[in-house]
């Protein structure tokens, strides 16, 4: 089956196939100089567009997909044909996106997430770009409906009742500046802008007077402007991605819809969810905000695909998590030896710098190194205490939880059946203090979730309580 011909228009405009040529053309243009006048620019632009159009037509013509009963076959490629066959039972999730251009032409893009192999949770993503929405819906139903073997796809035509799990309140977008990854968006945009300005020929560059940097007022205003830009930029970036985020349960799937310019529709099977994580960054903790993500087998660490709540109050994040995994109970604190260890590790770098500073002060009078070392060491105390306060673990009836981290405090709640192995680490220092670190190997999310610095004699009982009697092999 072919995708719609209208996708050729989209690909031409976005230079999808000709993308690798654009920098080359820019380089040639910059080298030769655009002194020949505006006509040269027009000719070059027309040539590149023509190349892009031809590339798009060929790409569309040679792309075909065949949703069969047991596998999806995607054939593509101009000179070297590639035929990819993905068995339907390896399909983990399907995402349907509608970027702006696609929406104007009435098309959507389908991304199919499949586990490529049994080992390492390698991800494979098939992209079918340029389908009409109805066709995309049919494809999605076909891909995710094979669970019920023997039941024809038509039985799923009527939408099963929806149950809403979470909805993003617009006010929660204001939390965006507290999330590190959203701050990166305006920074990247500014960086790209500067690079672009650099590449323009000299005659086109705006003529600005160099600001007088020695005046503190100027610096202050500039810093304020940067701060405001970062805050606004991150909110806008977050709004673009998470606009009207809504999470519903439809039958056996969890469906998330979000996005402003590009509308994304992600579907995951609830069966494949093995646990959830709730993470709170440093800034977010101050305002009691959090993010919730589901750990889905086969999706690896595709954080965006498994998001249950991208931003929101902590209570909401836990409410959503509670609907998918059972609460194992309150976290148990770790022994006082763990606090000592965290403090030592946090203060040590500062102490080292202080010692070096003392030597340097005696030798060369560089007292500021000593001052820096002392400052770092003093700052290490709340850091170490904070790290200790974040530690906790508990094993419940069907689930267990571990928590750690200071800059980003992450609590992972995992199902018993998710555990595929255990690791117990004990460093030399841990041995002297009777501590150990227990890592649960899980076939989802980050692959391993650890309980840092538990009491050595609690390590194995925790593993047994968390996953089952087979972990008793470890018992001393």
């Amino acid at each position, binding site marked *: 089956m072919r995708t719609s011909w209208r996708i050729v228009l989209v690909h031409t405009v976005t230079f999808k196939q000709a993308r690798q040529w654009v920098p080359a053309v820019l380089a040639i243009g910059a080298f030769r100089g655009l002194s020949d006048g505006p006509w040269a620019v027009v000719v070059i632009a027309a040539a590149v567009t023509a190349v892009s159009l031809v590339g798009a037509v060929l790409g569309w013509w040679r792309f075909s997909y065949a949703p069969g009963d047991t596998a999806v076959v995607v054939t593509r490629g101009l000179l070297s044909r590639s035929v990819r066959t993905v068995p339907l039972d390896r399909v983990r999730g399907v995402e349907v996106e509608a970027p702006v251009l696609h929406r104007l032409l009435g098309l959507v893009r389908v991304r199919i997430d499949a586990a490529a192999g049994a080992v390492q949770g390698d991800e494979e993503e098939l992209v079918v770009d340029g389908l009409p929405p109805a066709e995309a819906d049919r494809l999605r139903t076909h891909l995710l409906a094979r669970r019920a073997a023997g039941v024809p796809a038509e039985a799923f035509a009527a939408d099963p009742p929806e149950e809403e799990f979470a909805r993003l309140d617009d006010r929660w977008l204001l939390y965006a500046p507290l999330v590190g990854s959203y701050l990166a968006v305006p920074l990247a945009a500014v960086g790209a802008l500067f690079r672009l300005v650099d590449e323009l020929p000299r005659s086109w560059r705006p003529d600005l007077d160099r600001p007088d940097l020695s005046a503190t007022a100027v610096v202050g205003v500039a810093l304020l402007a940067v701060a405001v830009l970062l805050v606004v930029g991150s909110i806008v970036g977050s709004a673009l991605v998470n606009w009207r985020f809504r999470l519903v349960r439809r039958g056996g799937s969890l469906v998330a819809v979000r996005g402003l310019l590009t509308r994304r529709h992600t579907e995951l099977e609830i069966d494949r969810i093995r646990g959830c994580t709730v993470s709170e960054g440093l800034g977010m903790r101050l305002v009691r905000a959090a993010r919730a993500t589901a750990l889905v087998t086969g999706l690896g660490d595709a954080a965006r695909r498994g998001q249950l709540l991208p931003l929101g109050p902590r209570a909401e994040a836990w409410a959503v998590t509670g609907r998918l995994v059972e609460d194992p109970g309150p976290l148990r604190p770790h022994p006082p030896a763990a606090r000592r260890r965290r403090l030592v590790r946090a203060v040590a770098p500062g102490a080292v710098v202080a010692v070096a500073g003392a030597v340097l002060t005696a030798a060369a009078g560089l007292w500021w190194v000593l001052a820096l070392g002392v400052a770092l060491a003093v700052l290490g105390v709340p850091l170490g205490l904070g790290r200790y306060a974040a530690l906790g673990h508990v094993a419940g009836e069907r689930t267990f939880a571990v928590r750690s981290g200071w800059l980003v405090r992450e609590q992972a709640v995992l199902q018993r059946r998710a555990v595929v192995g255990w690791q117990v680490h004990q460093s030399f220092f841990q041995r002297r203090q009777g501590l150990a670190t227990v890592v649960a190997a899980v076939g989802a999310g980050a692959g391993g979730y650890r309980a840092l610095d538990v009491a050595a004699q609690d390590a194995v009982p925790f593993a047994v309580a968390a996953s089952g009697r087979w972990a008793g092999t470890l018992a*001393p």
Partner: protein
Amino acid sequence: MHPDPARTPAWSPSRNAIGLWTVEGVLGTLVLVAAVVAVEVLAPLPTWLAVLLPVLVVAEAVVAVGVRPRLRFRVHRWEVTDDAVYTLTGWLSRTWTLVPVSRIQTVDVTRGVVQQLFGLASVAVLTASSQGTVRIPHLDAAVAARVADDLARRAELVRDEAT
């Protein structure tokens, strides 16, 4: 000192592993000697450094050839029980790894060049998680093959929909 958090697995790798580690130690030392000789000949060094480097190399040689192989043999342990595969590695920093047979996805047996000289092989048990990998290095080739077969067969029998 506090008691161990987990018990020590019962079996050791093959005795030939000591030979293999010794050979690896010798090769490493030779490379180090060549490097130090090159540095001493080509670059002018202060006398204390020129004397210190060979001393360090000799110390490293003693450790790598005399001490480390036997230590590693004492410290690496493995065991296959009714439900799980279990290993212990490390001396200063120890790691116990446990994988139940029901979660095994692949069992690999690999033989490097030096391993083939000594008649050894390594077994790697892979699961759905990259952190849940159990490696049993340097078993006798026949033992490794038997262990791999046994685990693969049992994993097939107990195949769980864990992932």
